[in-house]
């Protein structure tokens, strides 16, 4: 397995603010990699360094086996980029922009261009200044998806799309995965990342704090269990990995570290399970766990 993107120990600061603080990121060739984090965590800065638009202060960056700062133009022919903020030239039509960007990348799949225009329901004859935010984003998406490239770098590509178009976007990315194209998808929409990505990196304050497959990460989270038992439960409290245990008669509620699920289930079935509701961990919980420090503390907590 080769890596399309390898970043290690990347630092970037603007004056006194550290946008990136020793960021590590690895994207394997052929995978859809989710790059998850709230606004201002450093996602776009990382992407701009990967594109050679910004120069990192320290650390190593390798993109498609090259140095993005020195070989920018050469490497860019092998990738397509959709910025988070798409601005078009006011007097060029969407169709013209799609063709121009495609040609500057070294070619456009004509059939795919037409197909994408249809699927995204985009009118290519409108001038840049008359498109809405979502439509500008579609222009950039069509140009990127119709380009014959190895790597797609997408910076919050669906932030302006309506739910219907978001669905079209998901289908498109699914197809890209089947074609073994590598995708780096930055997003703060958890369901999108959950649905699309093979692996995920979570970034917080300029650092990647968690990385792995969704299954890996689920291991780090808790499954919530509600069960009604035939007899009264016993020995649950002593089991490792069980939290927030609440026993009322034969009813049990608890949170279980996903890695320890097996032992807990055995213990429960020993008492005879009459009904069971198990809620799988969501990325949301994982995400919130990492960011709970960043959420403004409750007033009383602040006093302490």
């Amino acid at each position, binding site marked *: 397995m080769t890596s399309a993107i390898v970043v290690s120990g990347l630092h970037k600061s603007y004056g006194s603010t550290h946008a990136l603080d020793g960021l590590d990121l690895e994207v394997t060739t052929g995978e859809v990699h989710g790059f998850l984090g709230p606004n201002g965590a450093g996602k776009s800065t990382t992407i*701009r360094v990967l*594109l*050679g*638009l*910004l*120069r990192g202060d320290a650390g190593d960056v390798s993109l498609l086996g090259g140095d993005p700062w020195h070989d*920018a*133009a*050469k490497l*860019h*022919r092998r*990738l397509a*980029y959709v*910025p988070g*903020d*798409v*601005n*078009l*030239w*006011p*007097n*060029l*039509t969407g*169709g*013209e*922009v*799609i*063709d*121009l*960007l495609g*040609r*500057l*990348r*070294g070619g456009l799949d004509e059939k795919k261009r037409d197909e994408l225009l249809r699927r995204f329901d985009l*009118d*290519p*004859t*409108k*001038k840049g*200044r*008359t498109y809405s935010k979502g439509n500008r984003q579609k222009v*950039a998406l069509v140009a990127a998806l119709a380009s014959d490239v190895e790597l797609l*770098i997408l910076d919050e590509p669906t932030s302006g799309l309506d739910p219907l178009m978001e669905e079209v976007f998901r289908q498109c990315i699914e197809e890209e995965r089947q074609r073994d194209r590598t995708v780096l998808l930055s997003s703060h929409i958890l369901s999108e990342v959950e649905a699309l990505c093979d692996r995920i990196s979570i970034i917080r304050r300029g650092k990647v704090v968690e990385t792995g497959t969704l299954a890996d990460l689920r291991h780090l989270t808790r499954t919530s269990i509600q069960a009604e038992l035939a007899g009264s439960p016993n020995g649950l409290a002593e089991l490792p990995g069980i939290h927030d245990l609440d026993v009322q008669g034969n009813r049990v509620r608890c949170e279980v570290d996903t890695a320890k699920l097996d032992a807990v289930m055995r213990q429960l079935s020993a008492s005879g399970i009459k009904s069971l509701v198990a809620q799988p961990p969501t990325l949301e919980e994982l995400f919130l766990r990492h960011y709970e420090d960043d959420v403004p503390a409750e007033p009383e907590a602040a006093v302490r």
Partner: protein
Amino acid sequence: MNDFVGTGALVRLALRRDRILIPIWIVVFVMTAAGSAKATMDLYADPKALVDAARTSNASPALVSLYGRIFDESSLGEVSLFKLTAFGALLVGLLGGMLVVRHTRSEEESGRLELLSAGVLGRYAALASALIVSGATVIVLGLLTALSLMGSGLDTKGSFAFGLMWAAAGLSFAGVAAVTSQVTESARAANGLTAVVLGVAYVLRAIGDSSADGSTQWVSWLSPIGWSQQVRAYAGDRLAVLLVPLVFLAVLIAAATALIRRRDLGAGLVRPRPGPPRAAKSLRSPLALAWRLHRGSLLAWGFAFLLLGLLVGNIASNVDGFVTSDSAKEMVQKLGGVEGITDAFLATEMGMVGLLASAFGIQAALRLRSEETALRAEPLLATGVSRAQWLASHVLMALLGTGVLILVAGLGSGISSGASLGNMGRQVPRMLAASAVQLPAIWLVTALVVILFGLAPKLVTGGWALYGVFLLIGQFGEIFNLPQWMINLSPYGHTPRLPGGDFSVAPVLWLTAIAAALIVAGFASFRRRDIG
């Protein structure tokens, strides 16, 4: 009254945003007027010297077409300030118009006005506040100018006439901008249209002033700048003429509000038409894109420069009409006969055309920065386009564009002066050469923008400031008795005066070499910096 709700808040917002810009403009104008008056008064302490200077000026077609006539040759105030009468009115007009566009169409285009309009904001609030800010700025500017002129020792009534006629020009063009801001969808186009009207106004008054036999003097009255001249500050002080620009402003405000009633927020008067669904085969390089982005403005400028060239050449052929009195004839002989004085006129005008062409060069080079900050450079630089290619595409447009403009003006002036003088074969190549020698200085000023863009992109609009400084040095350096080394700082001062003057290769080569070095340094520094 509901249509005006929120005007006050917008006025405060505009003043907050422009709290540095407006005072600087005012100070520059006031200082320039007062300094110029003081310097000239010292120069012409002797009344006879004053009258002689005024006569010489009125006998020079170059000066008359550029600055206007001196109505009272014995008026100290008028002779001191005649270079700032029409020219100053032009610049105050530019300020008045620019401020209106800045607070109406720019805000609308950026979407900021939409944010505000969702609150409690009347339909006319944006326009009203922009006109109040712009109008107050030019009126304060005019009054302070009047006070500073009185302080320099000129008479009170004349000083107020002078200050108010400047303010009147500002008001006229604030009105023009109020209309252009409704017509176009982009602030760039609104500013462009205002500038075109300013240019036409200046040319109309030049035609009126240059009328040797007086038959076309009425043309001046078609021009807001002509009205300012007709106030005749220090030479009759016809304050009643100020009513004309006030009526003009009222008509334009009525027109602008009528337009506002008819259109949607964000839209212009001209509905954008759909364009081609596919790009032309040729649109496949950064240079092709740059051409696409610059070609509209280049065509408009090119057309204006052709007209300007034709006009200049035409005025040049009437030069001997100015030479009526015996003393003037004597002076003409000293200056090298009619041909000598025609050439001197053409050389001066070509210098002015060179200054104007530089504005295109600066504006075209500044496009680099606006493309970068509007995040339109980023997607291009994320394709196979290298930074050098992208930078080169716009720099080439700026350099070649100015070349085309100046040669078009040279050609136009060669044709029209040649046609009326009956020596086209000689005049066309002479004027082409006279225009071509302006290029090195134009390129140098453009190159200053390029290096600023590479080294200090946030300061890139300083290119306009440098241009302004060079302009002031050229216009007023000698009057202000600046030291020679300061006068030498302006690249325009090193351009050979053609036709007629001596041509030396050295300054042309030097200017070109410095421009080239600055551009190379701009490329090198741009490759090293962050984008955005």
